[in-house]
């Protein structure tokens, strides 16, 4: 696996997240939902890698989060190529729902551009309501509504992309209808991934229909039907 280096060229606040802009060549950019294990290069080695995800921003620059608060513009970073499985929008999806549960939708919003490029209608459902700064970056053609709007219109999407913390997976299955779902879907499961797969440390395991899977290797994006209603 080749090791990469990049410069942190800009740091800014986006809602409650700290976002950084990296000068990484485009062919190393992660797909939405994939992550870059990253460490700042400094005299004292950092103890853990930080998994950086692509977030909404200028499409010509790589915007990633969540950045540790101690990183500053000009820092040199060592990183690995994109890891894990990201979102894969079905080419035939025409009504795409984005659902962010208990977290900012900054990662999901990276799907808006490819969704609009395939002439899909896009709706964002969030709970809680996103920060106004984040909302200002959402194209006006994207409808934004609360979680209840999705619950009232479960027949609308033909594809649903979800982003949530691991602990909220059980809550998701209370919101969505029983299997089989009336739409396709994928879920980005947020959890610690300290070993990024090299150690199979097991802290990021997710229970699926095919047994326990590691979010760092087999995810962090899983098919919805794989993780819902798993006893």
């Amino acid at each position, binding site marked *: 696996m080749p090791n990469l280096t990049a410069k942190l060229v800009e740091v800014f606040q986006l809602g409650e997240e700290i976002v950084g802009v990296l000068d990484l060549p485009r062919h190393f950019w992660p797909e939405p939902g994939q992550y870059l294990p990253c460490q700042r290069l400094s005299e004292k*080695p950092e*103890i853990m890698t930080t998994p950086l995800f692509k977030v909404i921003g200028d499409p010509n620059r790589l915007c990633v989060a969540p950045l540790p608060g101690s990183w500053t513009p000009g820092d040199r970073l060592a990183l690995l190529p994109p890891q894990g499985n990201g979102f894969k929008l079905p080419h035939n999806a025409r009504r795409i729902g984005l659902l962010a549960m208990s977290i900012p939708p900054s990662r999901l919003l990276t799907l808006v551009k490819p969704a609009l490029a395939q002439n899909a209608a896009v709706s964002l459902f969030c709970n809680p309501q996103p920060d106004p700064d984040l909302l200002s970056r959402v194209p006006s053609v994207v409808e934004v509504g609360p979680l209840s709007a999705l619950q009232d219109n479960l027949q609308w999407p033909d594809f649903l992309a979800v982003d949530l913390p691991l602990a909220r997976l059980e809550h998701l299955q209370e919101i969505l209808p029983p299997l089989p779902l009336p739409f396709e879907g994928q879920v980005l499961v947020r959890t*610690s991934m300290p070993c990024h*797969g*090299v*150690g199979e*440390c*097991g802290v990021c395991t997710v229970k699926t229909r095919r047994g*326990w899977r590691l979010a760092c290797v087999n995810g962090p994006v899983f098919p919805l039907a794989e993780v819902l209603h798993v006893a």
Partner: protein
Amino acid sequence: MWLDGQSTIRKQDLLLTNPYVNAAGTLGFTPDPRAMPFLNHLGAFITHPISRRPRQPAANRCCLPFPGGFLLHTGLANPGISRAVSRYRRRWASATLPIIVHLLAEAPETVAEMVQKLEGLENVLAVELGLPPECSPKLLFDFMAASTGELPVLISLGPEQVPTLLTALKALQPAAVHLTEPRGALPEPDGGLVSGRLYGPAIFPLMLSAAQTLVNAGLRVIADGGIYERWQAEALLGCGVFAVGLDGTLWGVDPNESFRKK
């Protein structure tokens, strides 16, 4: 153990070509040269802990950072010894470095059964017994008696167990004592306490001190210690341990850096 021309070699002695190993639980069940370009620096590969029966992940599994390190609580999920042997024996046999299989010592009778399943496997160099936190000297004697066979036996314990077990270890003289990361506790984000192993440079002074105690007792010691810089490994080797165990640093973007730094 380094040959000095005067010592005799017993079948149960442990020989390493390089004075570095990985800590159990840091590199999975089998070495993967593609994902682990640092393998040529290691003298042996220690597997993820394996129990007699399959184990599920802990419900409250987590990784909690603290200043100078992090606490890891996973539940040590593994497929159990039978499936592990059938699943990994070929990859152990074809590995470019010898394998030390880490066994979770739960009861003496299950240890004996697990060790028997490993004897005769190609390229398995030794077994390492991970002691339970409450292990008494008597139980340690029972574990050692149960595990005695063709393979060298390493005893893996945390520094908090050294005072209780030191006398028994001196009497038993295992092939090596592997001093592993201490156990600790931190508050969970949702309240309550979570216990787990502690990793990171913050534990180094504690580990160095415990390693010195074991070395001074005449034991052959492999010591982990939150090693992130070369000088830390050199300090442990300088105090007489015969190999250094690496943990969290192997999860860095470029673990080879740990071996290069002056």
